[in-house]
């Protein structure tokens, strides 16, 4: 600090001035608007059913901090190795980068990190588990919802026991999704990691058969139902007894069945189960045909899977509705009717209307139906069910009644893996609140996502989206167990993370800092910028230039 001369004698002979902060006083009062650092919601986080903090994870990747990236992932999704493979990646739908060149391949980063995490999970001390609470929680069902809830509840320190009727944990992950999409060793490793956390596992234990649900309710502080939706719906036509259930078929295949039920196989239904069944059949050497009563556009299956099924050489018969099945000479004869599309129905899809007199027949060695699944709630006490036999759960919190909660497909009906994982996490949160005697409250809903206008795209060079390598159809259809999508390299992951606009999340680029004319932005410890409001004149350059849209100009109060 300079001592201001008091007398002439203390002055130098000529004007020699000394460097001083605030040489002419503070300049903050010049300001009408001040920059504030506000993190905003990215479209990917917003669209992700698990609300994964994708920009935050990518920032860690850019900084080479993979462990930290992995940990952030685990905050909202304990199984990125799984979602990185099977998730339809709704997160990529509104990616702002798409308006510039190509959307970010979030999936390939997720998969890379997922595998990285999976390796890490084996390491000691990777998961920090809070002190034991002494609370006992029974989780019935070990699909993605049950496992996700188990993970989060155990992390808090609860005593968690999973009850599974099958031999292996995983539910749809183990017995539904075919291995070419999700190798079974991935699921086994995830399960092993959970066991390592101290989660108790009781397989081959079907509640309602040996142990009653009432006993579980009594012995545990909380019972969580996460049994999925394993009951095949009926089409409601004569001759359904000649058809196999798609889910059952997949379960058998996952248990080791490697023989197709015949050469020419019809698969009825345009959902994910239908596609999985058809593609599995193809790999077992059969020639499947998918029958769907609407057109490709209305198919509820993941679009990518539909495309792959087509590449695999699977025949599609659209606008085709079976009306009767019968057996003749060891073959199954399907009587079908041609459909046309009418007005949109409640789901927004155009309703199929039969065309009179258009009946025709098809002949198959076998027919597999996959027209929808629903939970099997027959063993659940009536008091927890509604008149239609569905669980009476709050869809947001999972609370059912007494000390009972529910999550996953049981509550929502058939949905994606990531939705089940998210439901598991949210329900774990509710259970924890319940156990602490608190009111069960929802997480605050996310704000609307950042639009591209807030991003300064000038800082991004056009760059190609990372390409994921798929086995070619002729190769992949030869094996049921060979994973068809290959992972990407760390280099590619970094390149993709670099492409990310990091919408609403600071990418520590220091653009704001380098352009501040007033030297009033400080970067501390490589993290977010700090504004010195004593000197900031409020020019707004930092806000205008921010490549991620995290600086907002706020009017100063009078």
């Amino acid at each position, binding site marked *: 600090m300079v001592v201001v001369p008091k007398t*002439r004698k203390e*002055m130098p*002979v*000529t004007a020699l*001035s000394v460097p001083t902060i605030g040489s002419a006083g503070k300049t903050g009062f010049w300001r009408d608007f001040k920059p504030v650092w506000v993190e905003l919601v990215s479209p990917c986080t917003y669209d992700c059913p698990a609300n994964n903090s994708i920009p935050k994870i990518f920032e860690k990747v850019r900084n080479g901090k993979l462990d930290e990236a992995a940990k952030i992932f685990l905050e909202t999704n304990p199984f990125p190795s799984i979602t990185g493979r099977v998730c339809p990646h709704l997160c990529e739908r509104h990616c702002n980068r798409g308006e510039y060149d190509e959307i970010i391949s979030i999936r390939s980063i997720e998969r890379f990190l997922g595998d990285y995490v999976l390796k890490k999970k084996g390491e000691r001390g990777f998961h920090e588990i809070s002190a034991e609470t002494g609370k006992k929680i029974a989780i019935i069902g070990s699909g993605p919802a049950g496992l996700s809830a188990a993970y989060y509840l155990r992390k808090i320190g609860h005593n968690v026991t999973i009850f599974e009727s099958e031999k292996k944990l995983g539910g749809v992950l183990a017995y539904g999704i075919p291995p070419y999409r999700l190798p079974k060793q991935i699921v086994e490793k995830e399960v092993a990691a959970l066991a390592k956390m101290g989660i108790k596992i009781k397989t081959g234990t079907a509640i309602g058969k040996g142990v009653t649900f009432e006993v579980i309710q009594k012995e545990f502080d909380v019972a969580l139902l996460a049994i999925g939706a394993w009951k095949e719906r009926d089409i409601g036509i004569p001759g359904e007894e000649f058809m196999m259930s798609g889910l059952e078929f997949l379960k058998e295949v996952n248990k080791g069945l490697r023989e197709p039920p015949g050469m020419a196989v019809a698969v009825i239904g345009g959902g994910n189960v239908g596609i999985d069944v058809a593609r599995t059949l193809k790999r077992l050497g059969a020639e499947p045909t998918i029958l769907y009563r609407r057109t490709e556009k209305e198919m509820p299956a993941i679009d990518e899977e539909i495309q792959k099924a087509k590449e695999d050489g699977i025949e599609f018969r659209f606008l085709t509705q079976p009306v009767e099945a019968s057996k003749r000479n060891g073959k199954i004869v399907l009587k079908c009717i041609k459909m046309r599309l009418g007005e949109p129905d409640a789901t927004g899809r155009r309703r199929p209307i039969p065309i009179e007199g258009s009946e025709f027949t098809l002949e198959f060695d076998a027919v597999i139906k996959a027209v929808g699944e629903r939970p099997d709630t027959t063993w659940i006490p009536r008091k927890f069910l509604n008149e239609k036999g569905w669980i009476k759960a709050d869809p947001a919190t999972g609370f059912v009644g007494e000390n009972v909660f529910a999550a996953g497909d049981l509550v929502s009906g058939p949905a994606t893996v990531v939705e089940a994982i998210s439901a598991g996490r949210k329900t774990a949160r509710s259970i924890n609140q319940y156990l602490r005697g608190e009111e069960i409250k929802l997480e605050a809903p996310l704000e609307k996502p950042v639009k591209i206008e807030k991003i300064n795209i000038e800082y991004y060079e056009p760059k190609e989206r990372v390409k994921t390598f798929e086995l070619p159809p002729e190769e992949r259809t030869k094996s049921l167990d060979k994973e068809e999508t290959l992972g990407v390299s760390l280099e590619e992951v970094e390149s993709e993370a670099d492409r990310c606009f990091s919408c609403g999340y600071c990418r520590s680029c220091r653009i704001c800092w380098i352009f501040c004319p007033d030297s009033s932005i400080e970067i501390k410890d490589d993290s977010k910028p700090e504004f010195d409001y004593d000197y900031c004149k409020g020019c707004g350059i930092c806000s205008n230039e921010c490549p991620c849209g995290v600086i907002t100009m706020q009017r100063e109060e009078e």
Partner: protein
Amino acid sequence: MQNVIDTANHIVAYAAKAARVQVIAAYPITPQTSIVERIAELVESGELNAEYIRVESEHSAMSACMGAAAGGVRTFTATSSHGLVLMHEALHWASGSRLPIVMPVVNRALGPGWNIWADFTDSMSQRDTGWIQFYCAENQEVFDTIIQVYKLCENERVLLPAMVCLEGFILSHTYMPVEIPDQEKIDDFLPPYKPKWFLDVNKPISHANIVSPEWYMEFRYMIQEAMENAKQLIPEIDKEYGKYFGFEHGGLIDKYKCEDADLILLTMGTIGSEAKIAVDNLRKEGLKVGTARVRVFRPFPREEIRKLAENAQMFAVIDRGISFGMEGFLAEETKASLSNQKDQPLIAGFIAGLGGRDVTFKTIEKIAKKSSEWMRAGKVGKETVWVDLRK
């Protein structure tokens, strides 16, 4: 010691060398040219270890000198006439920056039309720039003054730039014998320049940024204070120089036969030398006359003028220059020095030798005779007389 016979301009170059100047920035102009030519020879031959910036104008010469001096070295330039006037802005900045730059000015008339001969109007019109001004009468004095002035200007109590003025051609191109002392002795008299501050990356200060009314007057006062200090130091340094080298030049005023003089001829530069001859001649005629050559015009030796006035009845002031609309510069300052004094002598002003017109001892004798007439009459016939002016 070395005896040379050379022109004052070359002597200036030797003095610069003897003073071990480190940076020279100069631009040629008649009649200063042979200074920069000789310096170029000295630098290129390696006799003078200095940076010689051959600038593209006098304004840049002074600006470069300021940069060099702020860089912390002994700095030198020389100019004349229009060159000096072009520097005007920079002169103010140099003194305000308190940079001890030394600049011989080879006095020359200003146009129009083009006149390359002696006249003091160039340097006189810079009298308010805050520069110390010396006026020399002979080549030896030119050498000695340059050495003395560095010692003066670099003194912590002064820290001002100085002009050493010498008349064009009359001195600049006239050969005279000069004794150049041994370098070791000069080095002893004039040690290397140690700046109080310079542009030092290890002590980052800014020089000459904005100075508000709150501070400006104090800085101006300190320049005035430095001038007063210089006035005190000049005779001391002159005496010290005399002890070292045997030459003294009268400090602020070189007085000749003034002790008992009724009439004192006040002069500057070479007119002072001619005046001495005139005095000797007039004394033979019985006129009690003396001459006082004002050697330092800034700071003006007000007190010494007053002392001279105590015994004299009349001052005849000879100016080789005019402040248009008033009178000769020296006459002005002399009168101003004597205001509020009791028993002031009569003062007559004479404008002579403008644009190089000859001012010989005969011209001066004429002036002295006219003045003594007025002295006897107790009244000055004319405030300012233009000597030898065409009718």
